[in-house]
């Protein structure tokens, strides 16, 4: 069996990290960077909280489209039947961090990276709005299943969506062009 070394030798004879090991290392470092940049309270208050309130507002608006009488109180979507508090962890940022770290760590031209970041952000937030509205209605009709739906089902769906989106972007937009068929 071939040993799975994390390094390889470049044409000049120097040892360097294999591309996939370099990707994973950059990916983890970028995640740590995103966390360090947004976790401290001043950054959280200045950036994450308003962002979460914005996400909640869009979620409340979307629930309103289904005829629900919703009103917003900060990050809380409230109706006469149920209330959902959109907190850090349900604002889609965790998936965006993973997707952004993947795109930025992947060797690709910057134009394609920027395209990926913008498209991925929109797609993830769109799915997140679906998550918020569906959780709101699960809370209305099946409150006993709210926690499981929130913690197990929807978190898995949103994260796997982010991972799938990254893999698709990496394959479709970031892979070197294949040689034309003869």
């Amino acid at each position, binding site marked *: *069996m*071939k040993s*799975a070394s994390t390094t*390889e030798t470049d044409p000049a004879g120097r040892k360097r990290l*294999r*591309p*996939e*090991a370099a990707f*994973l290392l950059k*990916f*983890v470092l970028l*995640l740590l960077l*995103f*966390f360090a940049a947004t*976790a401290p309270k001043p950054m959280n208050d200045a950036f994450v909280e308003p962002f979460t309130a914005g996400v909640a507002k869009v979620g409340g608006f979307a629930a309103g489209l289904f005829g629900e009488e919703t009103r917003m109180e900060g990050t809380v979507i409230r109706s006469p039947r149920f209330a959902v508090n959109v907190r*850090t*962890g349900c604002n889609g*940022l*965790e*998936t965006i*961090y*993973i997707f952004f*770290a993947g795109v930025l760590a992947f060797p690709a031209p910057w134009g394609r990276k920027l395209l990926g970041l913008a498209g991925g952000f929109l797609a993830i937030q769109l799915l997140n709005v679906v998550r918020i509205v569906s959780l709101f209605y699960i809370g209305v009709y099946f409150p006993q299943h709210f*926690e*499981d739906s929130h*913690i*197990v*089902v929807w*978190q*898995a*769906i949103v*994260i*796997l969506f982010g*991972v*799938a989106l990254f*893999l*698709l972007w990496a*394959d*479709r*937009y970031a*892979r070197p*062009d*294949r040689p034309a068929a003869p």
Partner: protein
Amino acid sequence: MHDRIDPRLRRLLARLPLAAGLAILLWFALVGRPWSALVTRASEGWIRAAERTKVTRLAFEDGMVVVQRADLSSRSETPAFSAAPMTANLVLLLALLFATPRDLRAPAYAARVAAAFAALLLTQVLHLSFAVQTLYATQLGAWSVATWPRWQREVVATGRYFFDIVGKFAVPFVFWALTLRIGEDAEAGKGNAASGKRRRSKGKG
């Protein structure tokens, strides 16, 4: 931009929704409770190993981690929290593994998968331990303030927050990536190309 998706990726993406459904079903029907109980037991061992006086007892009851300290008053309320936010990321790893087509699997796949589960368990133990320490450091009133210096409170709370926000979602992806063929495939491709060149140059010579 390519017109066609890599066929292996196409298969993975096509399988992913079904794999996710299967993983979620498996979590609720079979795996969730025993796995969370295992993480709770392992965390208790880990926490007690680090304690000078062994006081922490963790019990897994009805999906909750119940934290019992031998030195807490029996009149105090017993703290407890849900285990799923720390252990349910197993669903992500299961879904990704179920969706992985055979030709994307690395050599020694079974060993790598076992290592991925072990590594995930280790990170969950770390996460749960941070959660228990954060509870001690911040939620037990005057005792917390008197016993835990400010910097220690910050360290354990930051550790827990990291896993809550990013860590628990990212680790299954990283451990899954380590079970894939990506690197080996490229290397094998290069090797084949090189041996092909050698064969051709021998033929010319």
